[in-house]
């Protein structure tokens, strides 16, 4: 069984949190307070062709103090891990709250949460920080060498690994220690596009970011996939350019996760719906007055939120406000039925409890309402296969892998590309296409969802770098889905879009 990293346990956790509670208790007008101590380890390895380009590790550590003083938030954070540093931060947080109090129109109130005293660890088989860098670099250089042997002109491999340790203590009595590990291996091969631009075109491996350890990297099958990727790329470069128009699309989980992320998961964040992100990340068309009535998509659409999915990138024991992890419905039978919440949002929404979506990417940032794992549930009645989805298509496109993505600030208009696109002709795959981009409007797109694959085809994908908030924060998040069939979606030719 995994243990909490001794390097984190050696920090003066109790001394600092006791000092914080003591300072908070002496601060006038405090209605609520908490302190989060973080120590993260983030290692990045980048190899290209036969060279190690960079191997670096960072260990951010510090703490953030959050207070509600006279109904006003105050937040201060510091890397000065001393009792004096904590006292200064408590004073600075109180000063922030008081300075900004005159601008406040509505007092901060938090939905209730029981106090928790627990330790939670995300289990992994091989912690990547226990693997010698030499072994990891050698493994990665072997994969790039195999790409080159298979004919690639260019090959690179990034691997980002992270371990988060947190200790959360609140004035309500919570004391929570947590640890989780994640990594994202990205192998990419390139060939000269002799049929198009004359420049290098790339193909990425099918590996995903996961809340798992180094065992995932070694088991993925990079040695075999390296050569396969070059073959996919050769076929893609020689394939016909897509003719724009409406197509039936079968979208693989490796592509659909990102469309789900942008058009559904961001669209159902309550802080966006209430305008908290209007100046930056944006709002959403899925406003709270429509809960229970807004038709988000076809009746086949069942979307859940959770912080429990095994190996999920947003999976935790408790969120950064000390709320225990949960699972809930967001869209059921195509209708909006739930939101992602933190304690403040839950109170504003007249709910008794938050569903645990507070997250801060650093000791230096205030926790915001961030995305849990948001997943499209598979067909509950039938274990529909990918081939069965193809069989219902006369003329369409099968899309795998994510590439370019963009969506508007209210989560309506989006455009996505992918890694590979196969023509579907009379229910069968008929070779690759290139230059495909699909563009749609969220409720139209999900309204055209005709079929979802079964539980056997369900996969968890995700990202390390979901952005939101001012100052900007990034969050890791997973999205599960099975392949799905969408009817008559507008497909563009990306190359023609760029013609002068």
């Amino acid at each position, binding site marked *: 069984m995994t243990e909490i990293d001794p390097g984190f346990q050696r920090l003066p956790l109790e001394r600092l949190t006791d000092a914080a509670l003591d300072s908070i208790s002496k601060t006038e007008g405090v209605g609520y307070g908490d302190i989060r101590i973080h120590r993260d380890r983030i290692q990045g390895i*980048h190899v290209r062709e036969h*060279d*190690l380009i*960079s*191997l*670096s*590790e*960072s*260990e*951010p*550590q510090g703490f953030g103090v959050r207070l509600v003083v006279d109904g006003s*938030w105050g*937040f*201060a*954070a510091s*890397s*000065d891990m001393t009792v004096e540093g904590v006292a200064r931060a408590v004073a600075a947080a109180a*000063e*922030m709250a008081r*300075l*900004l109090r*005159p*601008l*406040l*129109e509505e007092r901060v109130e938090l939905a209730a949460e029981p106090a928790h005293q627990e330790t939670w660890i995300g289990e992994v088989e091989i912690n990547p920080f226990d693997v010698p*860098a030499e072994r990891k*670099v050698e493994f990665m250089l072997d994969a790039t060498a195999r790409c080159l042997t298979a004919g690639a002109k*260019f090959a690179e491999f990034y691997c980002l690994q992270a371990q988060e340790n947190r200790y959360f203590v609140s004035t309500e009595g919570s004391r929570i220690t947590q640890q989780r590990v994640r990594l994202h291996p990205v192998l990419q091969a390139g060939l*000269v*596009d002799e049929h198009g*631009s*004359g*420049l*290098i075109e790339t193909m990425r491996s099918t590996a995903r970011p996961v809340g798992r350890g180094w065992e995932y990297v070694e088991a993925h099958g990079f040695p075999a996939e390296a050569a396969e990727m070059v073959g996919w790329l050769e076929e893609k470069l020689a394939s016909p350019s897509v003719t724009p128009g409406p197509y039936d699309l079968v979208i693989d989980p490796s592509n659909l996760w990102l469309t789900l992320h942008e058009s559904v998961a961001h669209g159902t964040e309550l802080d966006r719906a*209430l*305008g*908290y992100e*209007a*100046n930056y990340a*944006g709002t959403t*068309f899925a406003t709270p007055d429509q809960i229970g009535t807004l038709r988000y998509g076809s009746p086949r659409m069942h979307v859940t939120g959770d912080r429990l999915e095994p190996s999920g990138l947003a999976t935790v024991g408790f969120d950064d406000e000390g709320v225990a992890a949960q699972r809930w419905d967001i869209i059921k039978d195509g209708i909006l039925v739930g939101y992602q919440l933190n304690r403040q949002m839950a109170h504003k929404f007249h709910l008794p409890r938050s569903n645990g979506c507070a997250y801060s990417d650093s000791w*230096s*940032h*205030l926790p*915001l309402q961030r995305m849990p794992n948001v997943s499209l549930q598979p067909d509950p009645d039938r274990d529909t296969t990918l081939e069965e989805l193809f069989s219902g298509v006369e003329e369409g496109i099968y899309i795998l892998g994510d590439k370019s993505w*963009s*969506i*508007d*600030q209210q989560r*309506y*208009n989006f455009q996505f*590309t992918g890694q590979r696109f196969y023509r579907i002709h009379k229910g069968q795959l008929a070779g690759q296409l290139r230059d495909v*981009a699909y563009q749609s409007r969220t409720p139209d797109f999900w309204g055209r969802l005709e079929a979802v694959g079964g539980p056997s085809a369900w996969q968890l994908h995700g990202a390390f770098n979901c952005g939101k908030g*001012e*100052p900007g924060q990034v969050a890791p998040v997973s999205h599960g889905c099975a392949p799905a069939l969408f009817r008559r979606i507008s497909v*563009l030719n*990306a190359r023609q*879009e*760029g013609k*002068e």
Partner: protein
Amino acid sequence: MKLEEIVEEGLREGAAVVLGERSTSVSFRLANNTVTTNGREESTSVGMVALEQGRVGVQSGDVTDSARVAELARSARARAEQSPEAPDAMALLTPSESASSYSQIPGPAPEALPRDLEPILDSVRDVLEQSREAGLRCFGFASADAVQEELGTTTGVRLEGRRQSASLALTLKTQDLRRSVWAGATARRLADLDPGALYRGLSRRLSWTEKSVALPAGHYQVLLEPSATSDLIVRLMWEMHARGADEGRTVFSGKSGPRVGEAMYAPEVSLESDPLDPQMLVPNFVRCLGSSEYGSVFDNGLPVPAAVWVEGGVQQELICPRSWARDHGHPVRPDVDNLAMRGTDTSLDQMIASTDRALLVTSLWYIRDLDPATLLLTGLTRDGVFLIEHGEVVGGVNNFRFNESPVGVLKRTVEIGKTELALSREIGDAVFIKAPPIRVENFFMSSVSDAI
């Protein structure tokens, strides 16, 4: 610990390059005419590069005391021992080869403190009050940051750099959220920004949207405001590296080599950077904790002179670290942390007045690569698209998705206005940018966005 102590301790513990950094920031957010969240952050951190016979190990982290500095230095050394030789290995610079140390901001290192907010708080409160009284909703973000850096190497280089920046952005919406406008500004200090002036500009723009005009996708003449221009030119700059051009991976790759010397843009277009621009002061020496096409850990301390990337529409320079320059016969050209597009004396109002028919676009959003070969990007207009007819703004227009390349945009630029410090909508004040409003022909709006 003082930064110079951190640097000396790291070097004593076996690091070859040590970059100490102290940073502070304060910020607050607004939504629906009230303050929402806020924060004050202070950090002291160090980044260390260990070298073992051309092998590199990099370790960084926040520090409180010398024991922590020693621990991080040991990690950097251990990592170097586990690494193969770096392809960019070169001798570290000596003091005579490095930038000369200078203090850009006289006096003690600047700090962003809660009280730094005070000069604008009354004004922001007035703005919120005006918004409430007008039946509108105001949203926004204000922040101030200060960073001090100290660089030391085992070859005797000792340099100090400082950076201070502040920004303020406001979004104003009607109560029914059917109309929305945005404006942002950046400066060295929050006290130099004027929330009242920003709000007055927004009120004027919101009044332009009282009449709404629905327009279809298609090609339009557009006037891009400085923020919109900034988001396109910064993406162009991110591609300006010699390695990508040499390897055939970017829009700067030509048939017979990098497109330096080629007239890629309209003759009026010039892009430049200067770390000593008084409005955009940034450290004038290389600080690099991870080698890439933009820089090399072996170049730490290298002087960063002013750059002219594009002159008269001709590409002049590409970013090139020393080792790549040595191996591929290019001039050395360090990256610079600011960017300016040269402008004229023509104001935006004058450009509007001389317009027959065009779209005025305030800001761009969610910009992503579509095709690296042409640097084709996709993105959206946001919080301010207006129709100009016969010299006047006649109404607000729906938003669009665009598919465009900054190279094509700057080739089809037919008029350039007055350059000003501009706040990028997507990257905020992470990079100082000066940009003008520009008039572009045949800007391709690929589809309509319903977003407001």
